[in-house]
């Protein structure tokens, strides 16, 4: 049983099985990738498709996927208000890529294709531009230093038709930037967003960071 930066980076960390449950919004997208990381870290993971699935969750991850699809399905199956309540009650929520769009208060210009404002929770004080780096041909990976672990090696981040954080409001802290200064990860209290996909890599430091938002002493038991 050990959680060190080294075995988080290598994806070999093993922790005590948690007594709390983390939900992963499973309407569309790469929710299983998040579920797999959580389970390998000893966390009970629950797929959330209907409002009833939210009961008893300590935190929630909104995965990557197509933001218009996820937004429409969330409305159709009555998830928007229950998820807003979940956030109001102070439960930690982490959005990756499409999940970041789903949490953002404002949507700016769309980088490619027609402009659509996908339905969303609109709870986090950021403005996000969809597909802001371009189409798939412009999707990329990059090393980013981590504000919460400045002495550790950078994180290899995967950006897929990624959104860009264009502006941040009050109470929002930037956690990672590209080399040109573009912010790509941010936190506002118990809300976390990343424009990239930690669930596509074997480096589990972002998942560990989120689990500590849920329970500060997570991973510290010997």
């Amino acid at each position, binding site marked *: 049983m050990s959680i060190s930066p080294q075995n988080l980076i290598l994806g070999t960390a093993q922790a005590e099985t948690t007594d709390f449950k983390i939900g992963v919004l499973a309407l569309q997208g790469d929710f299983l990738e998040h579920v797999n990381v959580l389970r390998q870290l000893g966390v009970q993971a629950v797929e959330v498709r209907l409002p009833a699935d939210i009961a008893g969750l300590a935190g929630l991850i909104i995965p990557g996927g197509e933001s218009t*699809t996820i937004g429409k399905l969330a409305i159709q199956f009555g998830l928007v208000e229950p998820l807003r309540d979940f956030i109001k009650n102070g439960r930690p929520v982490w959005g990756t890529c499409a999940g970041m769009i789903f949490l953002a208060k404002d949507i700016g210009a769309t980088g490619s294709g027609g*402009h659509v404002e996908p339905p969303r929770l609109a709870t986090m004080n950021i403005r996000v531009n969809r597909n802001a780096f371009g189409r798939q041909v412009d999707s990329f990976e990059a090393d980013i230093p981590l504000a919460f672990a400045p002495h550790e090696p950078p994180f290899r981040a995967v950006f897929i038709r990624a959104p860009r954080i264009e502006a941040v409001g009050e109470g929002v802290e930037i956690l990672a930037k590209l080399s040109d200064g573009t912010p790509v990860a941010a936190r506002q209290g118990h809300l976390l967003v990343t424009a990239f996909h930690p669930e596509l890599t074997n480096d589990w430091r972002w998942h560990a960071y989120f689990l500590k938002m849920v329970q500060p002493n997570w991973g510290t038991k010997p």
Partner: protein
Amino acid sequence: MTTENNVPNSNEESGTWRVKVGLAQMLKGGVIMDVVTPEHAKIAEEAGACAVMALERVPADIRVTGGVARMSDPALIQRIMATVSIPVMAKARIGHFVEAQILQAIGVDYVDESEVLTPADERYHINKHIFKIPFVCGCRNLGEALRRIGEGAAMIRTKGEAGTGDVVEAVRHARTVLGDIRRLQSMPDEELMTFAKEIGAPYELVKETKQLGRLPVVNFAAGGIATPADAALMMQLGVDGVFVGSGIFKSGNPAKRAKAIVEAVTHFNNPTILAEISKDLGEPMVGISVSSLSEKETLASRGW
């Protein structure tokens, strides 16, 4: 910001394998719909499609019209790309690497090297590794899937029989691929080389598939899906998502049916919800029973 002329930092890299496979991972649990006009594309996006396939004729019409089916007019594809914010795919003929170069030049998000079009090469597929944009390819069994991945396909779809509205071949191909993988998982390692030889697949990919217990890339179902129940059937068999071609825009009420199929893929394991969303969808596409087709009329037999 990461195009070749404007790389801000040398550690930023585009067109990598992880980025190619990654887009397919974002499409999982979703429906990719064939569209022939920007208006169709808008309807598909409104219905919740996770991507669209831009083409001039849906497979059902290709069957009726006959003749040589080729890559669509780039202008049509670009009009569709300008209309929707979701990813846009387009088809190139099997082996026609110049059609694929053209599709990359206009910036489509995924190329489908597709048996629905008339093959340009009866021996070789496209070398997909050398492209920056990712490819999806059809398969009927594990050997065919791993050959395509070996050539660089970053996503696989079972072929089914496009343009029929008959799900039987999609089921056959999904069961064959997934059954081959289950068989592989129970094999001792000393049998893998002979198995690789028998199915005509690269040995390293056979080993990797055994270890993962699934294909190394995302696997969708395609070819004959016409109803929400068809889509949920394929999901319960174990695929990651579905392509719907003629099934939507050859039906009585495309907008409603498209939305229902999207919902069915999310709630594929919930028969109560499936019953609700299957109601009052209007006429499905008429369809052709695959068993009435001669071998020469099938599209799935194209690809080597």
